[in-house]
């Protein structure tokens, strides 16, 4: 006969366990579940932002959203921005990490300075870049005109595809240090013996990179790509301050669309619907991330 009844001690441990886990559950509910449920709840209403008063519209916001060309155009722009800036971040990040992994004389200083773009406030960074891009006084146009490369200043932020390229480049500049730090940390743990063995086997620098370094970086790159993809996908301030989503809506990503609905049109319900749709797209990234990290654990 199986004894189902818990002993007093077991019940006590169970209660203690629940008490210990309760703070975590409460914090999780407060910072994750509540905002999530609120966003979904708001998305079912037609709400005037300043008062948060409105009426129930059910799924109308979603029907309107899916029927709007602006949503799909912004999603497409969002993907172009994310893929573009993320690719450059990875490329620059790995390249710079490899340089900083070498025994160069200014290595310590360079490792500190490389973090500068990542730490600087986005507002300040954008102001600096807007001046660099300025058509009348920007150093980029000035140098290119002085070098005879162009006759007239280039319109970096007001025409396509320049605006998208500029935004992607500034994004890559701002966030590639994150990749540098993560990759550099991993590079320092790759055993030298692997490289020594490869050298003995006659492998050159390129072969060593592709056959040893890159496979060793694989795990960290998976994590970096997933995290940065999520962060870049929801990037708002950098794009908003650089182009405002223009020209027309050429650089208007979904976060900018959410902002426009919420604060320019005072339509918080529709903004919440856009935010929920964004979350659904990001969920794909999350599932990939969880699966990858799960595989690693296994």
């Amino acid at each position: 006969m199986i004894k189902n009844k818990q002993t007093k001690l077991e019940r006590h441990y169970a209660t203690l366990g629940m008490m210990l886990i309760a703070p975590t559950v409460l914090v999780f509910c407060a910072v994750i579940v509540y905002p999530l449920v609120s966003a979904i709840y708001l998305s079912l209403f037609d709400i005037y932002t300043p008062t948060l008063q409105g009426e129930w519209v059910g799924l109308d916001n979603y029907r309107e959203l899916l029927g709007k060309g602006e949503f799909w155009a912004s999603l497409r722009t969002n993907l172009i921005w994310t893929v573009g800036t993320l690719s450059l971040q990875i490329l620059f990040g790995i390249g710079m990490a490899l340089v900083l992994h070498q025994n160069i004389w200014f290595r310590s200083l360079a490792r500190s300075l490389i973090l500068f773009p990542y730490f600087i406030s986005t507002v300040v960074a954008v102001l600096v870049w807007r001046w660099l891009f300025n058509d009348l006084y920007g150093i980029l146009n000035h140098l290119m005109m002085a070098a005879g490369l162009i006759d007239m200043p280039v319109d970096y932020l007001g025409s396509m595809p320049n605006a998208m390229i500029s935004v992607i480049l500034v994004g890559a500049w701002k966030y590639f240090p994150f990749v540098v730090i993560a990759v550099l940390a991993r590079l320092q743990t790759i055993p030298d013996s692997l490289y020594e063995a490869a050298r003995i086997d006659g492998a050159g620098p390129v072969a060593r990179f592709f056959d040893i370094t890159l496979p060793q970086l694989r795990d960290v790159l998976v994590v970096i790509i997933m995290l940065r993809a999520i962060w870049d996908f929801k990037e708002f301030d950098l794009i908003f301050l650089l182009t405002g989503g223009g020209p027309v809506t050429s650089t208007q990503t979904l976060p900018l669309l959410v902002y426009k609905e919420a604060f320019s049109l005072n339509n918080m319900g529709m903004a919440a619907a856009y935010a929920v749709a964004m979350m659904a797209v990001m969920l794909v990234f999350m599932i990939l991330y969880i699966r990858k990290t799960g595989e690693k654990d296994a």
Partner: protein
Amino acid sequence: MSNSGNGKFDVTRRGALKGLAASTVLATLPVRAWAQDVTLRWWSPQGSPDQVAAYKFQIEQFEAMHPGIKVVFETTSDEGYAPQLAAAFSSGEVPDVVTHLPSFAVASYYANGLVEPFDDVIEAIGADDYYAGANDVFKAADGKYIGTGIGNTAANMLWLRKDLMEAAGVDKAPETWDELRAACQAMQGGGVYGAPLPYGRNSMTSLIFIGVIHQAGGQVFTPDLEVDIDSDATRAALDFYASMRELCPPGATNYSWGESLTAFVSGASATGIYAGRVLANVNAQNPGIANSVTCVTYPRISTDVAPWTFNDFPSVFIPAQSKHKDAAKMFAAFLFNPEGYIKQLHAAPGHVLPVLKSISTNPMYLDNAIIKAYESEVDLMASAAAGGYNLGYESAAHKSNDKGGEVVGSGVIADLVQRVVLNGENADTVLGETSKTIEAIMKG
């Protein structure tokens, strides 16, 4: 829909004295200690260092007169006030006094029950001291005033360089678009562009282009607030705007107020489009051209169409959720106390123009180097602004439009400009879509 354009104010001696008396009464409002300490939060998007210094002076004077009341000034921005106020309103943690927001924003908030009626504050300031009709834009459908103007701004004046005009053989200030285009073509060259018109996806492009529609004899809404943007006048405005593109710097496709102002002040463009801040900035940053600068109302399609000046009617209002309404009203009225108010106006001379007759004629106000040096320009801006309009109040015949803020904020008019002028899309198609979008916004 006309500007007097004569640059003169109809101020009688008696009127001026009444205004001064009202202001003096204000200054001597009963001083009483508050039982509990009260902290008033004052928000404004106008926060240049000189302006903040003037606000500090006003705050110190007010606090000295009212022990127990503390005033804290907090800066917001022209592009950022909407989300900040939305968060404040929805959380209930509102500022007690808000200044310098455009009148149509206040109308939108009042229509949703977020703004305290302002009639008693206007009475305390002295209703008779305002220029005739100065508060019409703030009159709600229920007959109450929702705020008042803290100043007037003629935001789309055409700024000119007399030296460049002379060198290019332009003998008079342009009055029509054809004359403006010809003048800009004549003055463009040698690193100087004709004009810094905004083509960016921002509120400046929307607000300036609304003016251009009116300068073509059109309107965005009928007086009954039916959407009327799809018109021949708008097509003419788009044609004009497109024709000016080659006379503007390449980066004008992303210009907003700051870039447009800098282009003229720095000498990179021969004409400018801005409010009176040009005067202070030219004198401080490029004094070499200071003697050559002048302004006129912005040209229109023909002289048969009256000038249309964009005045955002910078406001003062009190959020309905303020916990200290009485103190806030006292402070709002105190902002017009001559000494402090004049200091505030002098912080951006010619930019924010007085709304009170007694201030315009006050020797203390007139005793300012820039106002003296540019007397005719300041007078012209004052009269143009007094007869000015905005999307919340397109003409004296128009109903108050409490969706004006949303229409501007949506960017639909800037999009119209960008799609037709920059992308070369079909104007008929884009105008049809623009009308539908604005109609949807109006329906809420």
